[in-house]
């Protein structure tokens, strides 16, 4: 196998791995964003609750 072909195959493998990393990280980012969104929602709900109490 010549050097050019060998390098080419390595490049393909590296890029495949990198793409896999990007895909998995995207999933993880989505999960984390949802987690934080839910948390922020809970904080805001608590604040609303506090404000509503003042009007009761």
């Amino acid at each position, binding site marked *: 196998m010549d050097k050019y072909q060998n*390098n080419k195959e*390595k490049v*393909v*493998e590296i890029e495949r*791995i990198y793409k896999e990393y990007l895909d998995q990280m995207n999933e993880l980012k989505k999960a984390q964003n949802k987690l*934080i969104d839910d948390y922020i929602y809970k904080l805001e709900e608590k*604040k609303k609750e506090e404000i509503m109490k003042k009007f009761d």
Partner: protein
Amino acid sequence: MPESKAENLEVKKGSPIIESLAEKNINPELLLKQRISEMQDGIAGFEQDGISRIDNANNSVGLTAEDVEKIKSEEGIDKQRVDNLGRAKAIANKLIAMGMAIMAFSGAGNFEKVKHSEMNGEGLVDEFLTEEEMQREIQEDKKNRSIKKPRFIKQEGGLSEQERRAIEEYEKAKDNLDKFNEKIAEEEKERKRNDDPKISAERVRNVFKFHIGSREYFDKLKIEFGGDAKKAKDVQRERLKYLEKVKVDFAKMENMNGRFLGIPDDINTHIPPWLLKAWINFKLGINGVGGFYNPLEEKVTLPDYRNDGTAQHEFLHASTKANVGITEKAKKIFKNSYKKIGSKEDRYLSNPTEMLVRKQKLDILMVERGIKKYGEKFTEKHYEELMKLYNEKGTLSRDVRDFIKTTKPEDFKKIFNEIASNEDKKSNFVEQV
């Protein structure tokens, strides 16, 4: 590399970016380096984004700190965020390992093959002799020299007084020379024995066993346990057991990073050194290791040449089985006294086991340089003397410099007066090391 390489190429025909990179004959090693760096940046960004969003929300929502803490705890937000980060790191870790495998197994590449000919017994191997072969050569040489050496030929009754005295002088000088050579050979043997990494490592281990088993060490442990002698005794026994039990292995420095990552030496020679460093940096925040302690295998790995500093460092880790045997009080003191330096190394250096080892190296140094005697309380004066040494570049070891750099000045007294160390006046241990 899987057998389906050619198929993969076919499958990836649909990816124009990958195809174009491959067609351009990009250097795979450089590409991998860049991709790993991007992964590391990506994970750092992922962590920072999570922290910033949560902090912003906490600060802007207008709730009391107690309420925020309560919701945080109910939602388990910190734990989940840390879990996510762990997952992200695991993904990158796995992919870096795969990258390594590609570089190692995919045939002839452009990367370094460290001392390949030596490893395979080709080329250079003839230049090295085993100990046995060397001894045989020396004996051969002696024999040859004794045959070739000039001799006075004694002629019966034909020696003048002058000749007889000359022969006597010669024999005397020869004896002296032989004795001198023997002495030199003996000294050389002793020097080699002292420099033998196995012997010097065992010496370091024995010195620490002696200290940890001392009354003075026990007294310091008692302080850590608020006067509880039973606990102090148990911990002392436990540390001695760890130290006694730990196995010692040796590695060539060029294989040390690979060994730390669990890569066999023969595969390690095919992996570019920068890639091993990147992986270690990713795991620990430092660029490489000079030796290491594996608490699971209860084994220290040291360089294959004498290096007492590294042996001390790793045996000290072994004595507390890394963090397992460090008291909660000591951990708390270290946690509160750590001064961040604002680099990736913070993660590694703030680990209590690393702080304890460095603190103990500083204990050794203070006795060695006559700064603080055993039993003496640590005072402002000692701190000033340490700082003087610290500011004189090149006079302190890296471990000691790291400790001074990352410890809050106001906490030195607490650390040195309340945490058990390996200093012991009676054992005179510094000289023994």
